[in-house]
């Protein structure tokens, strides 16, 4: 009997991202689902979390009573804890870490992604360039991190696909995405293709392809997420 369809929630998506971190990586977590990743990393992974605001080596979100008003992650509002060995630098030095290419992976939220590794996450209209939007550090991160992981809902609220043959919104970077974690699937982005690696409980490859705006190649290792 087929398992009941159960999309991943935000914490589960963050947990999947955490599973895809290598030992000792330097990782930047963007606003949204990614900032939750810090709660799912294990000490054995020896991950160093880097934040745009210059906090290097932070840990999980601060619990009640643990909040220090001066220690926040990339959201600028979520309090986090510092791990032993943390260091603080100023904003320019923080982006030096990024621009030099030291970030092994940046995890970002996104509106759209395409098989060429391009993605869009800073502007919700296709109006001509009008200098309005919220870029934050996403473009710096996307242009210089070794990999880009995205966390996003598989479809818009209106049911439109977000995984597309080509982004229709202005892109944040023309390439670089290697992994997309959605509420329905885990999709690798390799050699100009979307490769469907994992599915949320109860979803078949056909279910996922039906709500995807680009062709999905099914991985030989296609399996249910384990979170």
């Amino acid at each position, binding site marked *: 009997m087929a398992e009941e369809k159960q999309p991943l929630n935000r914490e589960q998506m963050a947990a999947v991202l955490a599973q895809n971190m290598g030992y000792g990586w330097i990782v930047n977590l963007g606003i949204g689902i990614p900032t939750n990743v810090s709660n799912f990393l294990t000490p054995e992974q020896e991950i160093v979390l880097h934040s745009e605001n*210059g906090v290097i080596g932070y840990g999980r979100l601060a619990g009640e009573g643990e909040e220090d008003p001066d*220690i926040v992650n990339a959201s600028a509002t979520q309090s986090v804890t510092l791990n032993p060995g943390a260091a603080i630098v100023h*904003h320019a030095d923080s982006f030096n870490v990024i621009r030099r290419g030291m970030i092994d992976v940046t995890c970002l939220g996104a509106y759209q992604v395409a098989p060429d590794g391009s993605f869009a996450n800073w502007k919700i209209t296709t109006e001509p360039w009008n*200098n309005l939007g*919220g870029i934050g550090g996403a473009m*710096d991160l996307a242009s210089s991190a070794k990999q880009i992981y995205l966390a996003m809902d598989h479809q818009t609220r209106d049911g439109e696909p977000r995984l597309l043959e080509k982004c229709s919104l202005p892109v944040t970077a023309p390439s670089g995405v290697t992994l997309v974690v959605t509420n329905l699937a885990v999709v690798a982005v390799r050699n100009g293709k979307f490769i469907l690696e994992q599915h949320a409980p109860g979803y078949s490859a056909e279910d996922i392809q039906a709500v995807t705006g680009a062709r999905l190649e099914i991985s030989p290792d296609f399996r249910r997420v384990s979170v």
Partner: protein
Amino acid sequence: MPRPRIVMSMDEAVAGFADNSSLMIPGFGPGQPTNLLAALWRTPATGLTTISNGVGFESADEDLKGLGDLVMAGRVTKVIAAFTASTRPSRTGTAEALVANGTLKAELVPQGTLAERIRSGGAGVPAFYTPAGVGTETATGKEHREFGGRTFVMETALFADYAFIRAWKADTAGNLVFRRAARNFNPIMATAARNVIVEVEQPIVEAGEIDPDQVHVPGIYVTTLVRIPVGGVLHINRASGMAVRQTA
């Protein structure tokens, strides 16, 4: 430069702020010069060009009036920021309408480019190259150039008439120390403005009491120091949204 002047109130610190000035405003969550901004709100200063991470929203609390309020009151001519508009449709409206009707100019800059442009302004470096934004709308019209087979865009330095700074500690020579993530844009903005006005959380100590190895901003950059007085805003409690105030 002689030692910075030390004044006793925020209003005194911002007195004489000239119309049509440019102003650097640090802060990324913590590290915002909240009290200086509220004092600026109380002056008639207008025609501002601001350089900050985001533009922010309006506040009903007179003590928390800041950039969002100045923008909405039409006192800002141009914003240079990494967030010039909300990415959430539900909150759209802050500055967008003003930009649409031409009363506000916006310059949207990737955050790392923004930081490096400020740092360059403080470094006497007029321009530099960065990979950020290549292949996106933000690189539109910018000069592109290859180095080592990779494409970069040229970006130019930012320098302002004023910087408002929030420090944790300061001494009478103007040396500044920041705490944790409240550091963010503060050290670089403090080097990239002609007038650097600093609100300080802790009592200002005598020169010599801060270890020279632990200074984050040398005092030569600082024009004015003012300690946050009793009742002044230290930070915002994120759960309640209420101001946490200086008690002693």
